[in-house]
């Protein structure tokens, strides 16, 4: 029989036999659409005028797919698709739960807003240099990180994200950009390399890369397994990506150098992907390592919040103030991870959603102000924003309230949940720091609003006089600037006044992280079903055989 063509192989032992359903394709659709649009635009690089349309349409498509995916996940629990029909854990799985779907959808919305705004901020040269393809490929990396269920695949998406962000940050090639980009590039590359080190060691211990499979196997490991080391490495790597103290210095050195839309998309998305990866690895996959690191994380979270807000108070460059506020937000999210209870993780997810929306909107709004004042970005030189555009100053004030965590806007609820969780677990100091950082943020941002919008002119001029009137935006430019900012602000207000749906989604996300049974079932459900079927078939076959044997015996007699 050996080697003969009739030697039949039972494929159901190694491959998934059921065909992929449309809902499976929905999981990877954001990646497919963005990567196709990106490569199409690279091919059309001689026609940069078409890029804005292609990018906006495909981002709108991605948002639609991500909203459908989010709805599907909320109704039916985590969804999984394994590539190439290989059975998990051998094939690369894309697994999405409520947290991944929620963050992917919000980041898609933000990217769509940025696409519209960038038709104003990115000139012809920037388009020819490939702004839109880089943006699309950045979104491939971001969506891939939120949707993947394989830890090495997560590393690959991080690198996709990183290389496209390099392209975006040096777009234009000014001196300051190159200076900032060098520091950004080297430190981020180091962080992803540490991530790879941790993944290599983890593979050596558990022998698998599928997150659901790791989560199952880690809980069966003997106590002498070096899980504390691996957890600490993951923590350092993702803390560096997220710009937590004391590995935050690359962020204020680089985030103010590129075009303002690039800063907006970086501030909204990149650090939050780091936090997402931290939550995914330490809360879901390696919960014991998180418990061991908890005390260190509390200190890191507190220090990050203080460094971020104090840094924001000390800056004169408004773009750098926002850079420091990104860091302060990361501290609040880390506080949730450090506390580690269900409500605390829920607070972190809510804060991530809030921070993605509000930081991008703040950068875009400041971009309009800088544009109106002719490229000035120093707080001591800005002024007269209210006179030039009262709508912009209203939107900015809402965003200032939101980022400081004041009701009734989006920042209030995550802070409320985090403070409650921190008090419940007896973290008094962390509670104090969360509240103090909110106060310091409102001082720093209130000052920005008072000086650049409320005051008639820059400091030094007599207040109430329009020392240097700003130039208002003209019709078409106005629409392209205000539609994205207003849309994001509407989300910020909605999250503040109607938090229930967001609470529901974040709660489902934190539940699925802390007890990942549904997550692992989504990955391995099909395998188990197929194995049971196979077993049933085998027993039926052998029963049939014994029946026929008996018959034969009967005939002999």
């Amino acid at each position: 029989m050996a080697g003969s063509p009739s030697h039949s192989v039972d494929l159901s032992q190694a491959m998934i036999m059921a065909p992929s359903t449309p809902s499976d394709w929905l999981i990877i659709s954001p990646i497919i659409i963005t990567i196709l649009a990106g490569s199409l635009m690279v091919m059309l690089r001689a026609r940069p005028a078409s890029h804005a349309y292609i990018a906006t349409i495909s981002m709108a498509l991605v948002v639609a797919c991500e909203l459908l995916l989010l709805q599907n996940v909320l109704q039916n629990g985590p969804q999984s698709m394994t590539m190439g029909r290989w059975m998990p854990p051998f094939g690369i799985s894309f697994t999405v739960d409520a947290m991944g779907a929620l963050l992917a959808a919000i980041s898609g919305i933000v990217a769509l807003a940025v696409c519209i705004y960038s038709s104003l901020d990115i000139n012809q040269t920037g388009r020819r240099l490939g702004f839109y393809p880089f943006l699309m490929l950045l979104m491939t990396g971001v969506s891939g990180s939120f949707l993947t269920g394989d830890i090495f695949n997560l590393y690959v998406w991080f690198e996709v994200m990183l290389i496209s962000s390099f392209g975006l940050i040096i777009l234009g090639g000014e001196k300051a950009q190159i200076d900032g980009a060098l520091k950004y590039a080297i430190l981020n590359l180091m962080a992803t390399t540490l991530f790879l080190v941790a993944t290599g060691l983890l593979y050596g211990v558990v022998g698998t890369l599928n997150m659901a499979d790791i989560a199952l196997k880690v809980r069966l490991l003997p106590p002498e397994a070096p899980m504390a080391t691996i957890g600490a490495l993951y923590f350092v790597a993702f803390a560096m990506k997220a710009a937590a103290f004391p590995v935050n210095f690359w962020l204020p050195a680089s985030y103010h150098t590129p075009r303002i839309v690039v800063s907006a998309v970086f501030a909204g998305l990149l650090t939050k992907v780091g936090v997402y990866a931290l939550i995914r690895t330490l809360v879901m996959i390696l919960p014991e390592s998180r418990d061991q690191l908890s005390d260190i994380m509390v200190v890191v979270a507190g220090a990050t919040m203080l460094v971020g807000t104090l840094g924001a108070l000390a800056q004169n460059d408004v773009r750098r103030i926002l850079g420091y506020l990104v860091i302060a937000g990361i501290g609040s999210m880390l506080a949730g991870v450090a506390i580690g209870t269900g409500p605390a993780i829920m607070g972190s997810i809510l804060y991530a959603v809030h921070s993605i929306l509000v930081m991008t909107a703040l950068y875009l709004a400041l971009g309009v102000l800088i544009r109106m004042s002719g490229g000035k970005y120093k707080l001591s030189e800005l002024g007269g924003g209210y006179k030039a555009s009262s709508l912009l100053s209203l939107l900015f004030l809402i965003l200032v309230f939101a980022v400081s965590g004041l009701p009734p806007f989006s920042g209030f609820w995550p802070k409320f949940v985090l403070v409650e969780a921190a008090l419940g677990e007896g973290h008094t100091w962390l509670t104090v720091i969360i509240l103090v950082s909110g106060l310091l943020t409102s001082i720093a941002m209130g000052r920005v609003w008072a000086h650049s919008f409320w005051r008639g002119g820059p400091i030094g001029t007599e207040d109430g006089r329009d020392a240097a009137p700003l130039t208002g935006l003209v019709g078409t430019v106005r629409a392209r600037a205000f539609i994205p900012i207003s849309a994001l602000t509407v989300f910020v207000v909605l999250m503040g006044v109607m938090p229930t749906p967001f609470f529901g989604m974040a709660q489902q996300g934190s539940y699925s992280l802390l007890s990942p049974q549904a997550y692992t079932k989504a990955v391995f459900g099909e395998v188990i079903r197929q194995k049971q079927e196979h077993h049933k078939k085998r027993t039926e076959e052998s029963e049939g055989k014994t029946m026929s044997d008996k018959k034969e015996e009967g005939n002999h007699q």
Partner: protein
Amino acid sequence: MEILLALLVGAYFGVSVYLMMSRYIIRILIGVAILGNGVNLLIFTSGRLTREKPPIIPEGSMVPEVITANPLPQALILTAIVISFSFLAFLLVLAFRTYQELGTDNTIEMRVAEPDNEAFPPVSY
């Protein structure tokens, strides 16, 4: 053999950390290159070391008959090599452009994005 390789990985990491703590970009980049190689060796070592037995299943059986070399770490390393090579190439060009634009490869003197003695923000209204 694992112990020897582990020591080698440690030596790579030590050398690269030492180089990356330098203030000169070119040394940092050499450190990054060595770090990438150290990681590749680490993945290779943690993926179980075996002699050169290819993972080929003989005809007629469903699983390999002897313990074979693990092909997965090699696939992972291949991915990591491609990525680290392309990043290093990008970083080298970026470092050269930095040297051209700023006229230095000393990171302490690179203060264009974060100027020294920057004015404080206004403290009064």
